[in-house]
Every structure is written in structure tokens, then in C-alpha cells.
């Protein structure tokens, strides 16, 4: 089979981002920043072209990495869902990087800023490789890159909080990696393969004979728990609030909306392309996911409601949203997984918007992050206030915005499941109420007029003019548009995702 030139683009994306990592190391901070934006843009454009090509030709294809065909060499697999995810991740990353540029300049040591771009570039490469890979061990290698670079992105702002958070993140994340590796080793021992499609054949044979049921379940369990720890499913979320709450804005936005989503996407690939979704559904693992997902939705929201620091509040809300995603897996149907994928998109678009706008709100309030100190911040920094309101509405699930669609999809998926319908719907309703409680409280606070003008002057409150950070206003506009697109034109995207998911099987 001869390949069109476009088919090489996934390879170019991975190599380009990998190459730009060492490149940023020898460049100055300013040049590295430009290089980073260029690389993200280039990867985004290439992913778009791949997406168009894959949609036009109506199928997925396999790309051999080297001269040796698949079970001997490495290969990557490109389908509509993968290309779309890569494109989407690039958009979010680009906006997060632009939105946090001013703060990075202020908070990072200048001589170390280029190292930040090393981390970001390699993080992007690992995300893209995780999306495209068709080989479990390649996935593990890039999970390693992902973990280390995320850790570096947390601790580059060197304060006590971030160092502690990075240590915690590293311990939990390495535990997750270790469990994932053990799971992969078990699977290799059982099947003798590392390539996803070959493992799936072997696993189907094993499941049919039923000889190796116990080790197979251990392997699946280890991989699921490992990835759940890394993506901060409820009982394993202790590393999350500090890591998202005290790192720089871009780090928080990228970590919450991309890093954890990369692992979840890998989990979906493992479900469909490695183990087979039927075997997963017949195991008890999805029930565990279902219970912990719902628990995460509740406890994440309750913790967020108790929180006084706006960044940590948004971080705890992430725990709740990850809970939604795992609840979707727990439903054990294709519709549930589809809803989860849509929630990945909507959460990524909304959470990064919230982090960037929260940074804008605290900038105009003397860099305070406590909610009580943010009184009237919406008037002092109108774009950030509006953006925060849009993000909050989307998180709550207000119609027009993306969160609404994903909640509807969850509800639709739940209706087909007789015994899980009631808990899902109740959980959705309760979690929506909790979301309203803490997000609307924050919105009300930022739109309460500040009374004592003299006191305000002293504590560093100031009005941010519209033209002070034009790039951040641009980022806000893009994020809001993205949210509206996901909320108003969901049908083609859902169809694309479901087609891509269908090709996974």
C-alpha cells in the first residue's frame, strides 16, 4: 500500500515536538517561547490535515515506524478520533500557553524559563504519541515522559507549596506508572505480544478458553488502577489540589485539561484495542469505576464548596469532573464511553478557561487568591470576569455551553442501563446542584461591588484595562467560542467521535 504524504504527518508531529525539546534547551527564553508556539501551531495544522484526510478516506490506517512490520517493529495507528484528539489538545495547549505567558514571565526565573518550554514540548510529544501509539510499551515510554515533564512543570515555580506538590505528584504518579508497567508485564507474559491488536486476538482466545482468567483480571486491574491514580480518580486525588492550585497558570491549565486526559485516552485505547470492551464490561472493574466515579463527583464538589482559595476550588472541581468521566466508563456501554469522551473535550475547554480567568481575577486583586479578597474583581477586570462566568456556567451544565451537552449524553447513556440508571441520574442532579453552589458563589462574589474604595487602594486592587493584555483577551474569546462550538454544534463532533470509537473495536 502506498501512503499519501499526509499520512506521514503523525510521525512528523511526534518527531518535531521531540526535537524541539532539546532545541529549547540551547535557546534563550524568548526564542524558546516563540519556538514553542510555532511547534504547537505546526502540530495543530498537521493534525487538522490528517483529520481531514482520514475523514475523507473514511478509514483508519496503520503507519509502520521503521523497516519492520508491526509485531517486530513499532507502529502507530491513525483514525478520526486520534487525529481529532491531537488537534483538540494542540488548540487547548496553544491557548493555555498564550494565556499564561505574562504570568510566566513574572513568576519564573528568567534563566530557567527555557527549561519550561523543554517540558511543554516534550509533554506535547508524549501526549501525541500516547494518542497515536498502537504498542503498549511505546505507550509506557511516553507515559514516563509525560510524568516527568508534568512534574517539572509544577515545580518550576519554586516555592514551598509547589515543591511539596511536585513531590506528592511524583510519588503518586510513579506509583501509577509502576502499576501500569506491572499490568503490561502481566499481559506480555500471558500473550507474548506488546502490539495492541495482537494482544487483543490473544486475549480473546484466552477469554474463550477461560484458562488464565485470574492473571488476566489482575493485569486489567493493575492497568486500570495505575491509570486511575495518574488521572486523579477520587480516592487517589490527594496530589491534585496543590499541584493545580499553586503552579503557574499554564501548568495548571495544561495539567488539568491535557495530562490527565491523555491517560484517560490511553485507558480508552486499552479498553477497546487491547482487552476488548466486552471483556471489560463482563468484569467487575466497570462497577468499581462507576462507584468511585460517583463518589468522586460528590466528594470533589463538596471539597470545592468548602475551599476558600479560588485556584484550589477549581482544582477540586476537576476531581468531580474526572469522576463524571469514570462514571461514563462505569456504565459499560459505547454510549457511556462516548459521553466520557465528550466530557473530556468539554472539561478540557472549560477548565483551562477557568484557570486562566481566575489568574486574571487575582491579578487585579493584589494577587490574592482567597475568594473573600476577590470581591468585585469582575468589575476591575471585565474580560476575566466574563470568561469566568462563562466557564462556571459551562461547568454547571447551562444550555448553550459544552457542559450541558456532556451531561445530556451521560443521561442518555444511563437511560439504557436498567440498574445503573437511577444512581446515575441522581448523581448527575446532585452534582449539578453542588456545582451551582460553589461556582455561583464564586461568580456572585466577583460581581459584588467593592464598597470601601480607600481600603481597596491599599491592598493592591487595581483596574485592568482592556488593552493591557490583548493576548489574554484573545485567549478568552477563543475559549468562549470553543465552548459555544462544543455546546451548540455538538452533533458533528459526537458523530466523529462515535465513528472513531467504532473503528477502535
Amino acid at each position, binding site marked *: 500500500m*502506498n*501512503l499519501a504524504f499526509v*499520512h*506521514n504527518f503523525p*510521525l*512528523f508531529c511526534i*518527531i518535531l515536538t*521531540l*526535537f524541539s*525539546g*532539546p*532545541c529549547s*534547551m*540551547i535557546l534563550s527564553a524568548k526564542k524558546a517561547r516563540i519556538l514553542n508556539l510555532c511547534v504547537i501551531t505546526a502540530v495543530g495544522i498537521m493534525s487538522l490535515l490528517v483529520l481531514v484526510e482520514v475523514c475523507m478516506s473514511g478509514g483508519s490506517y496503520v*503507519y*509502520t*515506524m*521503521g*523497516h*519492520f512490520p508491526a*509485531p*517486530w*517493529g*513499532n507502529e502507530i495507528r491513525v483514525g478520526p478520533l486520534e487525529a481529532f484528539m491531537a488537534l483538540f489538545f494542540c488548540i487547548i495547549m496553544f491557548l493555555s500557553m498564550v494565556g499564561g505567558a505574562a504570568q510566566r514571565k513574572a513568576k519564573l*526565573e528568567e*534563566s*530557567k524559563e527555557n*527549561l519550561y518550554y*523543554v*517540558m511543554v514540548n*516534550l509533554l506535547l510529544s*508524549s501526549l501525541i*504519541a500516547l494518542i497515536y501509539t498502537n*504498542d503498549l*510499551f*511505546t505507550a509506557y*515510554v511516553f507515559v*514516563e*515522559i509525560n510524568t*516527568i*515533564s508534568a*512534574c*517539572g512543570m509544577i*515545580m*518550576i515555580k*519554586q516555592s514551598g507549596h509547589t515543591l511539596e506538590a511536585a513531590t506528592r505528584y511524583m510519588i503518586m504518579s510513579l506509583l501509577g506508572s509502576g502499576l501500569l508497567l*506491572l499490568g503490561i508485564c*502481566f499481559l*506480555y*507474559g*500471558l500473550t*507474548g*505480544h506488546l502490539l495492541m491488536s495482537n494482544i487483543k486476538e*490473544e486475549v480473546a482466545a484466552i477469554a474463550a478458553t477461560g484458562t*488464565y482468567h*485470574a*492473571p488476566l483480571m*489482575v*493485569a486489567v*486491574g493493575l492497568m486500570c488502577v495505575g491509570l486511575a491514580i495518574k488521572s486523579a480518580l477520587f480516592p487517589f486525588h490527594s496530589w491534585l489540589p496543590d499541584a493545580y492550585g499553586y503552579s503557574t497558570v499554564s501548568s495548571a491549565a495544561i495539567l488539568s485539561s491535557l495530562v490527565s486526559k491523555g491517560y484517560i485516552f490511553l485507558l480508552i485505547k486499552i479498553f477497546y484495542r487491547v482487552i476488548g470492551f466486552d471483556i471489560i464490561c463482563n468484569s467487575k472493574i466497570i462497577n468499581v469505576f462507576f462507584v468511585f466515579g460517583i463518589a468522586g463527583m460528590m466528594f470533589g464538589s463538596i471539597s470545592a464548596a468548602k475551599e476558600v482559595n479560588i485556584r484550589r476550588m477549581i482544582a477540586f472541581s476537576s476531581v468531580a469532573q474526572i469522576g463524571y468521566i469514570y462514571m461514563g466508563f462505569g456504565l459499560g456501554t459505547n454510549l457511556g464511553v462516548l459521553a466520557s469522551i465528550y466530557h473530556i473535550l468539554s472539561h478540557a475547554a472549560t477548565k483551562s478557561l477557568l484557570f486562566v480567568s481566575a489568574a486574571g481575577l487575582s491579578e487585579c486583586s493584589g494577587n490574592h487568591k482567597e475568594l473573600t479578597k476577590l470581591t468585585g474583581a469582575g468589575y476591575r477586570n471585565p474580560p476575566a470576569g466574563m470568561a469566568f462566568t462563562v466557564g462556571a456556567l459551562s461547568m454547571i451544565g447551562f444550555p448553550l455551553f459544552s457542559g450541558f451537552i456532556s451531561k445530556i449524553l451521560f443521561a442518555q447513556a444511563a437511560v439504557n442501563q436498567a440498574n445503573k440508571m437511577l444512581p446515575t441520574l441522581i448523581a448527575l442532579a446532585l452534582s449539578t446542584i453542588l456545582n451551582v453552589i460553589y461556582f455561583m458563589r464564586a461568580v456572585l462574589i466577583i460581581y459584588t461591588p467593592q464598597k470601601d474604595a480607600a481600603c481597596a487602594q491599599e491592598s493592591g486592587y487595581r483596574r485592568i484595562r482592556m488593552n493591557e493584555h490583548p493576548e489574554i483577551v484573545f485567549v478568552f474569546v477563543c475559549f468562549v467560542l470553543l465552548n459555544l462550538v462544543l455546546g451548540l454544534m455538538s452533533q458533528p463532533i459526537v458523530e466523529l467521535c462515535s465513528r472513531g470509537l467504532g473503528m477502535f473495536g
Partner: protein
Amino acid sequence: MSKQVPKEVYEKTRSYKFKQWLSGTKDPFLDTVEMKPQKEFYESEKLIHEHELQHQSIVEKAYDLEHNAQVRLFQKIYNIFSVIFCLCLVFILLVGVSYLPKYGHEENPVNNEVSARYIGQGLQETGAINIVTGMILDYRAFDTLGESHVLFLATCTVLILLRKDKKKYQETAEHNDRIYEPKNDVILQTVARVLVPFIEIFGIYVILGGHLGPGGGFSGGAICGAGLILYLNAFGFAKTEKFFTGKTYKCMCFGALACYSLAKTYSFFTGANHIESVIPLGTPGAILSSGLILLLDICVGFVVSGTMYTFYVMFRKGGY
């Protein structure tokens, strides 16, 4: 005295005021500026002692983990749970492993067409006598490409954490380092002078012979890095910085990784598009054989040795 003046008038003249000031009976600034000399801040011994005690008691209370009931309870529960967790994990893993196919058995699923081809055709297809090298640098080169970037990334995170960029810290670090640096230790220097060349040559041999026998970039690079560290310990930074600075490391790492990426892009691209690669495999056993493997080994060797040395320098001094 030529002229008699009344006392009141005389008291107003400048000369009287001057005289008074000289003799010290009157302060010229009195009534104009407050001249009360400030009392030196003085705390009695007792007071100081009291403050210290207070401070200590606060600190003790805050850090008194032994008598803090909450912390103790938490630690107890934490310890119990961690032991239970570990035991459960160990149990699950042992049970899982006991069910796995027998290791080394001929019907083990690991003995399949994948390893058969590696063993049977590895030599012809990769040109490397060492099958492991052929596997990691040719068959599965994409994984190794990621792996070498992991090493690079690890150095970057260590640089973020430990590199001291502010002048002030740099100087104190330099100072501290000079104190602890062994100064011209004759035994160490003599041994190092003899050993370091051999270690380096052996490291280079291991790197270059990666496709011919046991060895390769990772192990050879580690040996080279260890040799560099020994040299640094014996002769100090003054000598090593003549040829190896932070900038050298950056350029070396960039060069090696760029070389690796380019070489592999070429081979991935040609492989996927079914273009015949122009790189000859050469005669197996010759030093210049097995296609790109030698080049990749050298690149990995550079990255690994630089990483080892940089780790050491960062932990010792925080910059070079």
C-alpha cells in the same frame, strides 16, 4: 570691660550664648528641637529568657508530634493502612504470577513468531551481532528514541530544581565546594591519573562495540560518566571546566538527540513509505556495520554520560 550692660540684655547676646554652649550649661537646641537621647533598647535577661521560652514552647507545641493525639492517631491509621495495602498488593501479585504460564516452557506464549524472527533473522536484517542492540536500536527504535528523551528530560528537571542561577547563591556554593573539595589528595590524584584514561577508553569501547557484543550506548555512557566524575573528584572543577561546562553539556545533548531524531526520522520515513534505505548494513562483525546502530549508540552514549556527570555536578554544587 568697656561697657556695662544689664544682665538681661547681656543674656540675649550671641557671645553669652556661645559661652554657655562652650561650658555646657546650656543646650543650643533646647526648646527648638527635641533632643532627648533615645534610650537604647534593653531587655533584661529575665525578659529575654521568657521570650525564648515562649517561642520554644510554641515551636514545641507545633512540632510535638508525639503528644498530638490527632497526628498520632493519623499516623497509626496511616501505618496500618500502608501495611495492609502493601500486603494486599503483594498477595494479588503473587497470586497473579502463580497463574502465569510457566517461565521457560516451550509452550509459553512468549515463544512466538516475534522472538523467533528476532533470533533467527536479526543478524541478517539489522547487521548487529548483539541481538539485544539490534532489537532496541533497529526493530524497536521508536521506544529507545523516547527513552533517551526521558534521560534528557530527567536532567532538565534536575537543572530546574538544583541549578543556582542567582549570583549570590553561586558564590556561596562555590565557596562551600572549595571547602569540601579534597585539595590535591596525592593518593586520589595518582590513582585517578592511572585509572581515568582506562575507564574512558573502556567506556568508548563499550559504546562502539554495542552492536558486536555486550554493551551499547546506555552502559558505555554510564562508564564514561563515572570516569568523568572520578576525574572531577581528584582534580576539582578548575580542571574539568576547561573542557566540560554547562554549555558543553547543552550542545552535546542537543547534537546527540538531534542526530538521533534525524537518523530515525529518515529510517521511519523510508520504512513506512517502502523506500529502500541507502544505508548499507555492512559485513556483520566489522566495526562499521549494522547501518545506523553505531551512530545511534554513540548518540545515546553522549546523552547518558553527560546526564551522569551533570547529575553529580548539580547535586554537589548546583551549577557549572
